[in-house]
């Protein structure tokens, strides 16, 4: 590739990525040269500024034509922009949490590292959203994974944190191996790694043997990627890792990393397996993706049941939220199963709502666990008396997570229900499981509510809120309520700016 071709690319489409990359460089150099005794908090604010800048440049890119550069390996389509918005929003909120995070078990010494590793992971998620090639997809995935492994172990002197990092690496390795194995089948049959190229080749497949092998590849890729979603059967790492990791990292894994997982799954499933024709008995071929619906449905159902039922027994708030996040992955998989005409809208909205309510809840969890040095649910007792703001905030997030009307979580679930019931073969069973497990989830969600509102506090000491955390709580609470009462704000925005994702494959 000569310089001329290199310059001919429209690099502007990559502005948000360049901004993040630039800030990673600045932060790592600054951390190196800053005297030891200077508080690294300032680096956090610089990083936050970087994320906000990237978000702003991304917003300015809304409405540009679909472009792809570097021989179709990096594409900026409406899908990429829409999901990057959620990723960056989540990243900015997590950054604020990380700035306020204090723990005396080793993190303090490397707080600078924390920020630029975190930004690298964010960069990985952005590449995943924008990639048009199996190679860039995988590179993005690993760019997210590797910093995440380190981040999980940042509390160096804490055994649980070390355990968490170790388990995360091992499971992550397994998942990458499975995914790559599946991708190798895809490459073997298609002869190219480019998503568009694969789609063209697969569209003309007729040999049933090839299609059969692609079915196996589908399972491997799906199961491998379910690691990122923390959905069955690759969910078991989540509770241990969530528990051990520093709270902002847990928040990142639970919200942003999970969103990235759905982004990559949508990309791969639709652009590869959506084109493989499977002959039906009546002669009309349907895409492989549709033929696999029952399997996805099965995994979605299993994920919802496992997440919600095991959560009932948890006393550790971070473990509880790990199981709750497994359950939410299951809900979103229901939308993926249905593949109705609103699947994209439903998943986008649910992820937006999920990022808001989950990060809000984690902000409060961080405050409470830092205050008490323990993660037992009982520390939420009497929160209403100690800090009404925190209690009301947590109340809002829990109502939303439970899917009570008036909150964004309800609209998200409603979209999924409607989507699953409005397709030709309505998924009654799956929807029933979803509703039933939602009811099960009330038990543990309202367990926290009773702790906060109906239990006497063990101490009357008021709780001081750091600035950044306060901003996170306010932004997420307002968002949760606003999108619950006026969901059309978000949905109209999606419709006017992204044209129903029509350019997904063009």
């Amino acid at each position, binding site marked *: 590739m000569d310089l001329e071709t290199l310059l001919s690319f429209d690099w502007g489409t990559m502005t948000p990525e360049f901004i993040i990359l630039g800030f990673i460089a600045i932060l790592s150099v600054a951390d190196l040269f800053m005297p030891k005794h200077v508080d690294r908090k300032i680096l956090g604010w610089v990083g936050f500024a970087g994320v906000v800048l990237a978000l702003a440049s991304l917003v300015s890119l809304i409405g540009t034509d679909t472009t792809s550069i570097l021989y179709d390996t990096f594409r900026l389509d409406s899908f990429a922009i829409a999901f990057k918005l959620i990723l960056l929003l989540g990243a900015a909120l997590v950054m604020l949490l990380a700035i306020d995070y204090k723990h005396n078990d080793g993190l303090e010494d490397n707080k600078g590292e924390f920020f630029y590793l975190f930004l690298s992971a964010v960069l990985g998620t952005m590449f995943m959203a924008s990639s048009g090639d199996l190679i860039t997809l995988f590179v993005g995935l690993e760019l997210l994974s590797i910093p995440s492994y380190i981040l999980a172990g940042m509390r160096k002197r804490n055994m649980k944190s070390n355990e968490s990092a170790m388990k995360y690496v091992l499971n992550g390795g*397994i998942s990458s191996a499975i995914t790559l194995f599946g991708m190798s089948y895809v490459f073997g049959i298609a002869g190219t790694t480019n998503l568009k190229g694969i789609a063209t080749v697969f569209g003309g497949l007729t040999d049933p043997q090839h299609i059969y092998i692609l079915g196996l590849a589908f399972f491997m890729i799906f199961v491998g990627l379910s690691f990122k979603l923390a959905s069955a*059967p690759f969910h078991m790492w989540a509770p241990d890792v969530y528990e051990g990791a520093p709270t902002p990292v847990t928040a990142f894994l639970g919200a942003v990393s999970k969103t990235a997982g759905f982004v990559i799954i949508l990309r791969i499933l639709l652009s590869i397996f959506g084109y493989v024709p499977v002959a039906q008995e009546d002669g009309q071929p349907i895409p492989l993706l549709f033929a696999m619906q029952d399997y996805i449905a099965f995994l979605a159902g299993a994920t919802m049941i496992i997440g919600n039922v095991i959560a009932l027994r948890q006393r550790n708030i971070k473990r509880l939220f790990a199981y709750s996040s497994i359950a939410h992955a299951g809900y979103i998989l229901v939308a993926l199963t249905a593949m109705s005409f609103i699947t994209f809208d439903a998943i986008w909205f649910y992820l937006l709502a999920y990022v808001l309510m989950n990060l809000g809840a984690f902000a409060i969890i961080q405050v409470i666990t830092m205050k008490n040095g323990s993660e037992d649910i009982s520390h939420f007792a009497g929160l209403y008396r100690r800090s009404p703001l925190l209690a009301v905030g947590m109340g809002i997030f829990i109502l939303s997570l439970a899917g009570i009307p008036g909150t964004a979580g309800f609209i998200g679930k409603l979209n999924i229900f409607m989507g699953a019931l409005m397709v030709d073969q309505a998924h009654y069973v799956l929807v029933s499981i979803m509703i039933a497990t939602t009811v099960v989830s009330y038990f543990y969600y309202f367990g926290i509510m009773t702790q906060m509102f109906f239990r006497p506090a063990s101490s009357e000491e008021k709780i001081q809120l750091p600035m950044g955390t306060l901003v996170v709580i306010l932004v997420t609470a307002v968002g949760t309520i606003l999108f619950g009462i006026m969901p059309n704000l978000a949905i109209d925005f999606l419709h006017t700016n992204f044209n129903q994702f029509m350019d997904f494959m063009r």
Partner: protein
Amino acid sequence: MENAWLIPLFPLVSFLFLLLFGKRLKEASAFVGILATLASLVYSILVLLERLESPTHKAEAVWLTIGNLELTAGFEVNQLNALMLVIVSLVSFLVHTYSKGYMHGDERFPVFYAYLGLFTFAMLGLVISPNLLQTYIFWELVGVGSFLLIGFYFYKESAKAAAKKAFIMTRIGDVGLLIGMILLFWQTGSFEYDEIFAAVEEGAISGTMITLTAILIFIGAVGKSGQFPLHTWLPDAMEGPTPVSALIHAATMVAAGVYLVASLFPLFNASETAMLTVAIIGAFTAIFAASIGLVQNDIKRVLAYSTVSQLGYMMLALGSAGYVAGVFHLMTHAFFKALLFLAAGSVIHAVHTQDIEKMGGLWKKLTFTGPLFLIGTLAISGVPLFSGFFSKDEILIAAWAHGNYGLFWLAVIAAFFTAFYMFRLFFMVFTGEARSEMKNVHESPSVMTLPMLVLAVLAVVAGYVNTPWFGAFLGDWLVEGNEALGHGHIAGPGWIMIVATAVSLLGILLAWMMYSKNSISRDWLSSRAPIAYGVVKNKYYIDEIYNQSVVFATKAISLFLRFIELFVVEGLVKLTTATVQALGKTGAKIQNGQVQTYGTIAFVGLAVLMVIYALTGGYL
């Protein structure tokens, strides 16, 4: 009427205001709440008056777009909505006023008023919703309000448990409602009541689908209105402060189930099976709860079971095509049951116990509460000329006219039980001698007695808007312009009224003979009611016979039903919980912290999927 959407907003403002400034206002918070609900009440009355003259008003705007579907939100004022607005805002206003006295001195006084505001907002929002989705949203919101208020005395372990139980039990019903609602949407393409009814009328939905959706939605109503078998949360909900029981668990929220069935009446009416289900569940609940009420010793629990039973009556009416009868009883019940609860609250306020075994002889001490309680008791027992008499009569006629003879007789027996246990309650609390030492028994302040007085007046006169003697104004107005709702007045054989009167008087008589003997009150009664006194003279035999037969039989039935409740209903609940718990336990056990296990599970999962894939020859 164009601005009727303002009505729910007043309490919402009160809620938000008290949330922010409640701590500073302290007990002055009461005035904020009272003023807000007064504004709602005045506005509601104006809307009702306007609605008497002018047609239904409806306004909507697009709220949510799903794909190319547009869901709307807005408000509607039709006859039923307008009537409900007045009932809800009136009872809420009175309860707000009453609570100023009842909750006096409570540390969390402003919080209480804030929650009341939230609840009132949700309930008013519920009754002006023009479509199912919006109804559902507020339906859940009232559930949250109820949850917060039941658990208000959070230092009581039982209150916490009751709050959680209530929320989750009603949610089980809501699952039915939600599925039914979405199915209806899928079939008709709309959540709007009007469009659903139009689709039903045109035959756009198949008969089975109508039955299915109607029954699913009815499950939601069963949960909210405490119908068998989802009724167990309602008696437990009495752990909340008494004004809350009056407002939420007697007059308004629990009636929401009845309201929902009434709003969807044309849908239910299109399916024989659905109607019969509603009628049977209603009648069974009526007698079932009434019989349990016979043996309760907690003043609030007696009233709670009576609420369950009365709601069963309303369901029976609706299920027997007695739309007017159901709505009419909903209205009269709201007044006299709120009155009874507030009066019970006044009694508890005075004697600081809820156990009726420990009360007695309060008639002379509570000179104001006593007569008011008596009025409520007479009304609920269906004594002629009181409001309950007229509405209960309508229900019995509806059941008879619809051909549900078996259910009709069940309802008659339930009426007998009702009269009996209500007067048992009355006699045990107010007559005889005090059965325990009660110090400082004093009448409640006027801020508490005045709301009761208003309700007492309504408990007497509210029946006259719809009587067989002076005309069925309410009925004619309710069904005006909508033939699907049936007739404003259903004619029935005249003997029904006589039977109803007879059983209620018989019940009172029995209660009096059993619980008002050997006491000062006998003199009191004998001097005023010589004929009754004559009967009492022979009380020995009757008592014996009664003890041998009637008491035995009722106790047996009651024990049997109690048995069903304990072992079948709760057993099922326990079984479900146990299964879920066991699943959770196993799951948590597999989660043993061994990273090998985690990898294995992932591989096993993958392998299982692939094996199934290979065995089925590819695709399912």
